[in-house]
């Protein structure tokens, strides 16, 4: 049983660390497929990567219901840490979550379960934060869409391996859809709902 005092700390400088983390995530979202680095570190937790922890401290608060996957939720320290540092309510219902934290991509629920926004308010959708093995090595995917000059190649080892196939539902749903942030340690890549796979090699 961990007490609050024994929990890993948040940002050392919460104002400037949050700003720096946000700029990395904003750049990632504005340039899909590009690998951005998150510099500030918070105390790491076993199932939560340091990049994920920094994003949590930067974007989560009492206004953002969170959904945690089973591996994340079974770690009571993660729950305590999130509650203490962000105050975000943890919900069981995926369809009302502002953010979903996924540490076990193999057990990713069907993407239709998450909030996809409405045609009037497409912004009211879940942002999926998916921890992956590597951003920089692995299978390569060619991406196109707003934010990309022509096309760009992302090399990543991602579970589920068919993530980009699953994300193709964004095409038909637009402007509704799901935005994904991939995290591997301190590296972050965003795949907003406008990004399309141009052609795939194995």
């Amino acid at each position, binding site marked *: 049983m961990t007490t609050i005092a024994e929990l890993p700390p948040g940002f050392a400088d919460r*104002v400037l660390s949050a700003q720096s983390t*946000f700029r990395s995530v904003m750049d990632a*979202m*504005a340039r899909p497929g590009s690998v951005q680095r998150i510099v500030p570190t918070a105390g790491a937790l076993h199932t939560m990567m340091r990049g994920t922890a920094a994003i949590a401290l930067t974007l989560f608060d009492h206004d953002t219901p969170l959904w945690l996957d089973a591996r994340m939720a079974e770690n009571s320290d993660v729950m305590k840490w999130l509650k203490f540092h962000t105050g975000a309510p943890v919900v069981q219902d995926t369809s009302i979550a502002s953010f979903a934290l996924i540490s076990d991509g193999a057990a990713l629920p069907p993407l239709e379960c998450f909030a996809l926004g409405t045609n*009037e308010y497409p*912004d009211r959708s879940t*942002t999926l934060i998916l921890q992956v093995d590597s951003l920089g090595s692995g299978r390569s995917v060619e991406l196109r869409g707003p*934010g990309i000059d022509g096309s760009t190649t992302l090399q990543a080892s991602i579970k589920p391996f068919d993530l980009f196939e699953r994300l193709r539902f964004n095409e038909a749903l637009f*402007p509704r859809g799901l935005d994904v942030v991939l995290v591997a340690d301190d590296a972050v890549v965003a795949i907003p709902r*406008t990004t399309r796979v141009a052609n795939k090699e194995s």
Partner: protein
Amino acid sequence: MNAPAYNFAYLDEQTKRMIRRAILKAIAIPGYQVPFASREMPMPYGWGTGGVQVTAAILGPEDVLKVIDQGSDDTTNAISIRKFFAKTAGVATTTATDEATVIQTRHRIPETALHENQVLVYQVPIPEPLRFLEPRETETRRMHALAEYGLMHVKLYEDIARFGHIATAYAYPVKVNARYVMDPSPTPKFDNPKMDNCAALQLFGAGREKRIYAIPPYTKVVSLDFEDHPFEPYRFNAPCALCGAENSYLDEIVTDDKGGRMFVCSDTDYCEGRQAAGHHGSLSAAPYKEKAGSHG
């Protein structure tokens, strides 16, 4: 007590988180207006409260900030916003477009092409392009949901029926990424082509109307038009009187009460840069004249 009077960049952290989340969704849905809980700022509505909140949410200590008002770095609005962030965030400021990492603008896009490490933040008075055609928010929201933009084409057609050409000269509607019709803020339509496939991220903040929207880099932005009345950017048919530029957007300055006027670049940094590089216009002051003290 040595405690700073304000949080870094004025806004409190909870407000910044809320604005940051809105910015991320705005980037993910290009051209869609994301509602946000706009705060009161220490300046009146209409003076850039939306742009200031967006800038405050993204600004870091390493940023170099440039603020322009109608292209000028030296007008009241630009100077006061630049001083505001110099005071509350301690950031470096500049007037040189090239050196800036964040550029907040009221109604112009700089003439110098923007690069990838820059963010352009627009101050927006009325974010809804359909507002003067349909006053009800519930209806305009439905129209955006259905991509029902016929009314906007009717408006442009009425321009042609009445004037023989599309007379809309500023806040000229654009379609972003082939989906949302968006108000580019009251920039002259001369600037519209610069929004298309721009290397920099473009963010728009409307404080009174509580909306944030965005154009990601390298995104298709098309000015609405008709096959037989294609979009045409407009500029006064004259060179700049100070730097001789033939391709910049010009301000008309009345110089006397006898119909005298001069045309000068609206982008002061661009104009000064050209003058420093040795370009002259018809009304450039020759340096030796000043030394001689001759006047008029």
